[in-house]
């Protein structure tokens, strides 16, 4: 595997949940290139969320190294990881995770406020087709609308790296999507298959398909 902007080397992650120890990652080697759209595909519990969290600086590996460009994330301080997330990473979480007391626009502005090169929050909302619902709080939005605020919030900061659960169009950004939905993998430049805490397969799509061409 060649060198990428984001890479994980021999990464393991063991959780202690109560009295049980769970080894979620058992030695992952993976690298992502600039502008690549990658999909991590695998069944529930295969460790893909864990890897995504580690790549996004939301979690730290038990062993192994993780690097984004010249940032070594494994072993980085909490403050350094926070800065990494703030400056480089956009997240779209599986659950929408909106702040209930803020409107759709304010939820997006929340991120724009702390980003240096953010686009106007209105523009981000427009890109997901929610301009008309900008002043509505999450409780006033439908499930689908809430789901669309999440990518707007992730994109508003113009992140270098977008980590999400759902497919999106090519943005000139390195995108890592985790999913168990095979259809999404058709959009990716590359599909990494996960099983039992390991990358068990890798497939390159010579011709990634746009979302409109995919049968969901």
């Amino acid at each position, binding site marked *: 595997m060649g060198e990428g902007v984001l890479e994980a080397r021999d990464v393991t992650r063991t959780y202690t949940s*109560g009295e049980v120890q769970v080894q979620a990652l058992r030695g992952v080697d993976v690298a992502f290139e600039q502008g690549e759209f990658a999909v991590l595909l695998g069944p529930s519990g295969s460790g893909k969320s864990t890897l995504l969290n580690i790549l996004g600086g*939301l*979690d730290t590996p038990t062993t192994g190294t993780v690097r984004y460009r010249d940032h070594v994330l494994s072993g980085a301080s909490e403050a350094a990881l*926070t800065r990494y997330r*703030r400056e480089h990473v956009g997240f779209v979480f599986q659950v929408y995770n909106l702040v209930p007391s*803020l409107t759709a626009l*304010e939820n997006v*502005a*929340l*991120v724009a406020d702390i980003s240096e090169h953010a686009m106007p929050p209105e523009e981000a909302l427009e890109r997901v087709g929610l301009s008309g619902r900008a002043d509505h709080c999450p409780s006033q939005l439908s499930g689908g609308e809430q789901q669309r605020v999440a990518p707007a919030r992730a994109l508003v900061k113009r992140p270098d790296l977008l980590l999400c659960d759902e497919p999106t169009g090519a943005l000139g950004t390195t995108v890592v999507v985790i999913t168990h939905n095979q259809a999404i993998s058709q959009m990716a430049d590359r599909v990494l298959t996960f099983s039992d805490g390991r990358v068990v397969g890798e497939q390159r799509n010579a011709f990634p398909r746009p979302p409109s061409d995919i049968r969901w």
Partner: protein
Amino acid sequence: MRALDLKLWRDARRLAGPAVALSAILACGVSAQVALRGTARSLERSRDDFYARTRFADVAAEVVRAPLSVAAQAAALPGLTAVAPRITAWALVEVPGFADPVRLRAASLPEAGEAGLDAVVVREGTLPGRGEVLLGEASARRHRLSPGATVHAVLGGVRERLRVSGLGTAPDAVYVLAPALPFPDDARAGVMWLPRASLEGPLQLQGAFSELLVQVGPGERVQEVARRLEALLERHGGAGARARSEQPSHRFVDEELRQLAVQARFVPAVFLGVAAFLLRDVVARLLGTQRETVALLKALGFGRAVLVRHYLALAGLLLLPGAVAGAAAGAALVRALLGVYALYFRFDRLVPDVAAGDVGLSLAVAAGAGLLGAWASVRQATAIPPAGAMQPPVPPAYGHGLTRLPDRFKGLFPGARMAWRTLLRRPGRTALSVLGLSLAGALLALSGIAWEALGWVLERTFQDAAREDVSVTFAEPAGHAALDVLASWEGVERVEGERAVPVRLWGPGGRWDGAVTARPEGARLRRSPGEDGREQPPPQDGGLVLTDALARKLGVSAGGQLWVERRDGDRRAQAVSVAGLSTEVVGLAALCAPLTARELFGGGAGPVRPGAGAAGGGGVLPARGVGRVPAADGGQHADHAGGAVAVRVRSGRGGRLQRRARGAGRAVAGVGHAAGAGLHAGGVCAAAAGGPGGAGGGLARAGVGAGLALRAAADGAVVQLGACSGCPW
């Protein structure tokens, strides 16, 4: 406004409901602290200011009679900065519409140009002229006497009609303790001021004084000055010089303020502790619900410091109303409480003094605890990586250690098991909860304990220790005939006599100016409970029985030795042993057997011994001459100076006793003279000690003009007559 700030305000608004509860808790903690400490401080400062403005004397010395030139000699003593001679005497005052006699301590006002100490502050009306009197505010207001009213006073045996010119207060008369009254009682004891000329004649003190007030220079030793004064005044019938710390009014005020200060430390601390505990817990739990939002914000790139600031600000907003309300309520309570205390502390003014320090301290503790809770909660949410924090929390660990304890009790149903495991999983938190609940319980108990304690004191005092219905104290020693007269009244069941000798006691730990009371053997109306709860009668073979409080003051215990020095007559100091201790709840007292008194102090009114009455022992009525005091030695008044005999009467049929009492003054006064006990018109006055069982009411007063007033009550009521002079107070 930044989105995070918007979130802050909206979250605060959303949490308005819990914020009300938090504010109530915080306001309670803060207001209790501010109010109680502020009240205590306000009273202390008001007292100090009042004392300073009115030039409260450092030392006061009473004499029988000393020419004014002696005051000039005193002024020349080293260490004194001001000297003020005055005339003081207890007077009996008839208040229209009030059945009992009222004892007022009359004091002369300084003449124009004289340096007055214990200056009087006129609160209403004007200073008195000839034929006028300035009444102490407390008793005047109690009796609704205003300037322009008229009262009759018996002063030195002369009954005078006086017009009330005004009401006033003075530093030595914030509380007035009349002889034989255990507590200040505005209805029956007080103070009044008259022009010197109004007192000189009746008291035969022209060009003389009976009390010398002294101010001591800074850095001077008060006790040393008092000693010099005593030496100077001894040959003028000096009864000892009393430092301010021993002045009854000051001591009472001081004791009250000290109690308040203790309460002001303890009660708010409990309130504050409970408030702090609750705030910490409630805020922590409230923000605990924001765990996932904290993790989300962190995931989005907000640093820990920003989040901690954000949530501390949120907690601060939730606590702010309580802090403001608590401080405001505390300050308002200080004013309200001072309004109440103004009825008890007759300073010229009560100035509220709310210290920023109290507000700050209470806020720091209570709000600080709340913020600590917030901090702990946010810290917990930010301590784990956001990936974990965004997941539902890991189920708490059970199955170890204490949590398995309930398993041993097989009969426990699952609900109980669950409850026990939850309690035992975090024993520290459970212990704190128990502590919090205990403190909350203590608060409830505290609010009720004052009344309970007072009830207990009254019960111990009037059912166990002082069981008489009427007590009569004579100005000068009375002979047994006085007892006989009292015993002969219809309805009187029992009469017992006592003799009190004013003394100074010296012990290893200090000295005490008071009286030794000789109590007859077999006395049943007055008893002193010993340390084991049983009666501790004074031993017949010598020695004193001290109340434990007095023993502590003198630094002596049972078996120890004291020096006793009579404060009138022969002042030679003698050694006396402490035979035992009693546990009276009120006051300091020293008791001895009549024979001991005779050995120590000579004849005087003579040892009190049971008469040859029908019942023997203490003597029980209706037989005459029980609890008999032998006739004083043939009218040799000088020998009896300072002696006192108290007679107690147990009323059987109060109504009749009341009628009989109407003639009491004349009768007993006559007996007193007949017995040569030196009972003279005007020399006796009365004080009442209210007690249990006053059913039937009917109080009688008689013979005020003749010199004796007696308050007799219906069945079971307690009445006490006190002496005007020569009393142990």
